[in-house]
């Protein structure tokens, strides 16, 4: 499991069902609140800052992963 998936599981309470294609509708518990905590956890883990449009819940998990790859040299 990728580092993002591990973070996702610990915040949301279950693993992303469809990997990077996972959407909020796929996982019960991935609500706006969980999403803020997920963003916080990702930014802490990778030492990066995600773009504003990813702060709101809605995009697939892969978008978060891609943003991490784009911004953080260590990811």
């Amino acid at each position, binding site marked *: 499991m990728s580092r993002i998936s591990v973070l996702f599981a610990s915040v949301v309470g279950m693993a992303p069902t469809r990997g990077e294609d996972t959407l909020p509708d796929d996982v019960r518990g991935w609500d*706006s*609140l969980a999403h*803020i*905590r997920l963003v*916080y956890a990702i930014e*802490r883990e990778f*030492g990066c*800052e995600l773009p504003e449009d990813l*702060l709101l819940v809605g995009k697939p998990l892969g978008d978060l992963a891609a943003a991490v790859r784009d911004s953080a040299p260590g990811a």
Partner: protein
Amino acid sequence: MACIVTDLGNHDRNRSMTLGQLCGEKGRGESMNGPDCTQLMWSVDPYAGYGEWHELSKSMVLNRSFQPLRHVCVAVLATYTTDLLLPLLSLAAARHRLSLEVIETPFGQLEQMLFNDSCGFRAMPEYLVLAGTWHELGLIPGEPTDEAVREAVKRWTGLWDAAIAGGARVVQVGFVPPAVDSFGMAASGEDSSISAAVARINTELAKNAVGRVVFADAAAAASIVGLRNWDSPRYWHSARLPCCMDALPHMAALIAGAIAADCGLTARCVIVDLDNTLWGGILGEDGVDGIAIGNGPLGESFASFQHYLRSLRQRGIALAVASKNDPMLVEEVFNRNPRMVLRREDFACIVASWQRKSEQVLDISRRLHLGLSSLIFVDDNPAERAEVAQALPEVQVIEMPRSPASYPDALASAPGLFYVQHSHDDGLRGHSYSGLRQATELAEQMSSRNEFLHSLGMSAEVRPLNQNSLPRAAQLIAKTNQFNLTVRRRTQSELERLMHDPSVLALTLALRDRFADHGIVGFCLAFTEGTDALIDTLLLSCRVIGRTAERILVAEAAKWAAQRGCASLLGIYRPTDRNRMVEGLYPELGFTLRSKPLDDAAAFEFDLLTGFPQSSCFIQEMAS
């Protein structure tokens, strides 16, 4: 902002517990169980960040060993999202041994909850926390702010009144200015800047709060953390969070601290070690003139710590010494070393002996009539700290840093020292504890108790409750556990209503003796019910237990009842696990037990047609 990815501040936070330490070798779900739980709670540091706090608050839900001293119900009404904050509140409260039931409220519905009779709270919580952000204050940089300041004060104080009328105690969280102000570093001097307007609103609210609500100064909390580390515009814009995630534990600590302090869950006495705690070096080896105090960088560090301790004393917290030292040498330091900041008389009690530290602490607790949970223990030696923590887990033992320059910071972060504004009688308290120690010593010399009570030269002033004494009375009701016959926690607003009710007697008692002025230390509430008069509340501060002051209040109540044509005076005793000491009070005063209990409490009766209960013969009553 940078705060999202870095730890807040660069403090020497080696006293902070990590999650792993708290969880020990057990699984996370079982963390904070076991006898050491209370001590561990104190070490939970807001600087640990949101992630740690969130995990800890989750494991707290499962925790069974936490034994709170108080339980209160609280609701937070805020103009921002509180969903992430609320779970942290219970953890923050646990650091004060306070257990919270947190009621969730809809976001931004302040007026709707408080001004609407039908859709507000099912039952008003004991504490209502009101909080907002600068965004909705209507401030436009560069434009006059007077109107906005007036409006803000009007809005929030109006909410206070509604909450108070509903029976809640209000905690107003102050406003935090933005990290970025168009006037930059000069903002505080520019009346039209947002920062200056926010500061004025805070000042106005704090001024209005005195004796009315608790003001929790979030701007001060944020300035200690650093505004750039606190403020987070992106989380405001995207999620209506008032601050960045890592500032949430600080916000929770502020709110919980204010509630705990208002409930009286604060330390009453700081017990300090001497060698390498109050001064550098070992007195027995370095001698009275050889210890480091006030001279050089090391001596200055210790002098600063002494200054900090002295300011605590001025705040009403007693100081005591527990030291393994020769008592004669210790006296000599106070008499002879001119660089000592603290004087002998700054200490309510000095124990210098070769007993174990835990025994010394017990001795101090006994002499000062203070419960163990109201004591803070400060010692540079980790072994001594461990011994006290092990033997007396209720005592709050402070983790001390290596460097004495950081001692004040370590002690100031102790949950027990959280400070909120108080009614003015608190200032007398530090002095009162000194007087208490002298009185206890006198008692040890006296052969009989009566002789002792006479020798104290006590005088009491009994007055009807009034606007000035109201906050102190409310505080006593909230705090008193031992000498409290019914433990009915009436709120300040309830008292204010009762104060104006002609069928109610509400009396405060102030006591002084030849050692100290104790201020208002007793309260009695009685009302008439047909031909009976009922003592609803009778309590004394633990500082004056055993002084027979309760007799004055009961006798006054009897006089009042007789004047209103009552035939009997009823006294109620509602047992709790902490007020056993007054179980036999009414029989002692000549009351007889009624066969039928009143609700679930024992009712005692005094027949007023045969006379009045005897007042105290040791205390002179001053005309009010």
